[in-house]
């Protein structure tokens, strides 16, 4: 392995001028120095940044091809590094909180539950349960409707209706989350408070339905992509023995695209789980456990995202570290869903040999 890298490097060196390589190395080095100084909160960060810019311009003028390749590589590494930085900073800032409570922070159900302080125990369990309840409601709303929408767009709609429905669904994804939240806050919450005489304005049920609607477009578009990868020959084969379109969908199209459709649902669930603003403005922000757990109209309501958004702006000390811990849990949950969905999609892609 190491020898191969050396060999590749030798090849690379032989193809490029030495001066260009040195320049490239210095450029990259100045970027690294800039990052280190920035990390150290140094006021001198501006010097290596300026050096980087000047060197880039010089290199671009003199050795464009070499510098272009080198720069794009550096940028690619930087993109990957962003994810690494996010993980690192989340974990580092959350570490003291986990050190205090250990994993008990995830399942502790006795009072006191909130908020994190150095001397009293606390727990993320109410928010984890809240996230699960709202996500479950959202999935019940979004999964069947989303799959139905995907089937409609890819299999049923005529050319003209598709031209209307598809952009419509995309627009739905485009409406900002806070706008859904505003409508939910002003109209839906108030309606439920008056019509169902709930104890608080806002509850898990309305939040779950709202984020379900918001997760719909994700499911529709990803599932539609999956359905359209099923080869036309297979659908034709079913239709040619005289089955109806619906039978073809049920017995050939959907089973063949099953993994892709389930990936779509997983991604939609991930969206619902990470949904922040609509939930933040609609939820009552009381920490606790509904009793019984299916009492989704009750007065308790807080999820992982809402607690961070609601309290993060003004928290300090152990409180903010606790919120970082909430962020770590949330990030882990969403990442698991997203990676699973990607694995499923990759398998589906290799199954049909398509390279999209």
């Amino acid at each position: 392995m190491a020898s191969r890298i050396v060999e590749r490097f030798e090849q690379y060196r032989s193809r490029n001028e030495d001066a260009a390589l040195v320049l490239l190395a210095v450029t990259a080095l100045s970027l690294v120095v800039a990052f280190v100084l920035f990390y150290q909160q140094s006021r001198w960060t501006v010097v290596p940044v300026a050096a980087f810019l000047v060197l880039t311009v010089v290199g671009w003028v003199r050795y464009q091809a070499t510098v272009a390749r080198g720069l794009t590589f550096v940028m690619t590494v930087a993109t990957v590094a962003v994810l690494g930085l996010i993980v690192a900073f989340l974990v580092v800032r959350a570490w003291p909180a986990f050190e205090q409570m250990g994993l008990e922070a995830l399942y502790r159900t006795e009072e006191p539950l909130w908020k994190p302080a150095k001397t009293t125990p606390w727990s993320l369990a109410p928010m984890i349960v809240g996230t699960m309840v709202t996500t479950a409601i959202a999935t019940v709303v979004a999964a069947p409707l989303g799959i139905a929408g995907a089937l409609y767009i890819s299999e049923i709609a005529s050319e003209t209706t598709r031209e209307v429905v598809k952009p419509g669904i995309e627009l739905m994804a485009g409406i900002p989350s806070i706008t859904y939240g505003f409508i939910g806050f002003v109209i839906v919450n108030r309606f439920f408070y008056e019509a169902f005489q709930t104890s608080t304005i806002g509850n898990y049920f309305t939040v779950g339905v709202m984020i379900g609607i918001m997760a719909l477009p994700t499911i529709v578009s990803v599932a539609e992509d999956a359905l359209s990868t099923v080869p036309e020959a297979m659908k034709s084969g079913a239709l040619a023995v005289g089955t109806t379109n619906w039978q073809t969908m049920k017995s050939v199209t959907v089973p063949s695209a099953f993994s892709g459709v389930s990936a779509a649902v997983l991604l939609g669930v991930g969206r619902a789980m990470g949904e922040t603003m609509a939930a933040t403005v609609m939820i009552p922000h009381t920490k606790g456990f509904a009793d019984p757990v299916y009492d989704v109209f009750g007065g308790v309501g807080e999820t992982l995202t809402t607690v961070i958004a609601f309290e993060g702006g003004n928290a300090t000390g152990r409180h903010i570290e606790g919120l970082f811990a909430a962020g770590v849990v949330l990030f882990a949950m969403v990442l698991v869903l997203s990676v699973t969905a990607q694995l499923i999609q990759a398998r589906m892609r290799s199954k049909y040999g398509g390279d999209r």
Partner: protein
Amino acid sequence: MSTVTRHALVAGETTLREYVSTGVMAVGAVLFLASWAVLFQWVGERTPVLGVDLFTLFGVLLLAMAAGIAGVGVASRLGHVSASPSASAGLVAGSLFGGIGFVTGGLVASQTLGMGTVGWLAVAVATGVAAAALAVVPREDVGSTLPAALFLALVGALLVTDTLGLGWSWSPNDVSATFVGSVMVPVVTIAGSLVGSWSAAKARAGFGTQGREAGAFYLIRLSVFGMLGVLTLLVGFIVKNGLETALTNAQFGLDGHLDLPGALFGVALPDWSLPFVDVQVPFVTNVSQSLYVDVPGLAPAILGTLWLVVGAMLFAIPLGLAAAIFLAEYTESRLFRQLVEVATNGLWSTPSIVFGLFGLAFLVPRFGGGKSLLSGQLVLGFMLLPLVVITSYESIKAVPDEYRDASAALGVTQWQTIRSAVLPAAMPGVITGVILGVGRIAGETAPLLLVYGGPPFASQNPNVLSSFQFTSSPPFVSNTALLDAGSALPYQLYTSITSGRLPGQGAPFTVQDFGWGTALVLLVVVLGLYAVGIASRLYFRNKLYNE
């Protein structure tokens, strides 16, 4: 093979079965829409229609649907109308009707008859099993109509007799909500119209495989209709409620004028004053809070969003595009490409609030310790980054290899090929992707709460351009505007929800109206970007196909 049955190849005239089923479906559609109208309180629940109460009329119509469905089913079974039903309605329909039977039986037993837990459970199980059996055991034409008709008849009877009416209410012990008649009547009517219309759709297509297709397609079409309905309602609410606020004290006229100082052009022209359209929209051009404005406006928020988006683009586009070029054109290592793909997809699915936390931990302490525009720009840039990488990568990969081969065959270097052949061809896709991505981050709120959000109602606009200063000590350049917290459109909408009232005295509207106005402006900005993105995609695609 003798196992195969044959039916007529060409259908005859429209039959009685189709007329009746179509009628039932039409009544179902009317009931469905009317019930939603009642739920949205567009129609009062006490409105008398044709001399009877609205809810009584609902009951009568449900009974009529029940009669129609049952009539078609029984007539088909007795052979009076032609159809091609299967042997049974199937387990799916069976479990569906079983579920409806269970819920209905349980509710009727516990609420109407007042039975205890054991009693209602027994009745619920009994009705559930009976409904499932009625659906599954007989031939399909009976199995998919009679249970539906019974359900509709029961609901209709409850409504007509006012057993379930405006005076009805139910507070279950373990759920902290009260179900009252004015809400539950439309809800059960919606359920009834769905079940009835589904059954009628099957009957209309003559049961059998085609009937199942018709029933399923009916439900699918209805879901899509519902989704578009939600979209229309959202946009409609915002436009209806926001327009008045947004146009407070607005002036539109033709009597404005544009001053052109001739001296500006360096020639001896008289100072011209051109007639021009006069448009003044104080809600868009005023600051949000000041002693000197009578209409609180959105100017700080609009400019804040603009600067956030510009900063994010300046950061994310070069980085993302470069990464995409490297991935698509340079790297030959599959492992490396997969690693980057996993990382970008991971970034894409990372919740926005987590980006906010990251900004709070990484950027805020390094930009003076407070919330700042620069942190906001960078955090939004991080969020835009994966979208730029993914869309650019896809569109670069979509450029046909012939372009590269043609260019390479002329003896051009790889970078020149990329620059002169690949990138121009990929640009439409990149631009479209960036526009859609910008539309997404322009509406993003959660990270701004943690890294950028300033006072709820800003009293001055961010002056980024005029705030650059050179200083003698590092970092030599400073820009106070970049290091200030501020407002943005989505953030402004958030603060108008969380703050109880508008600051100051004498604003011509309430804070909620202010919110509606903000929502409208935000929607116009974001959907405008989306519309441009989608339109450019269609434009480039058509151009591609027509060449």
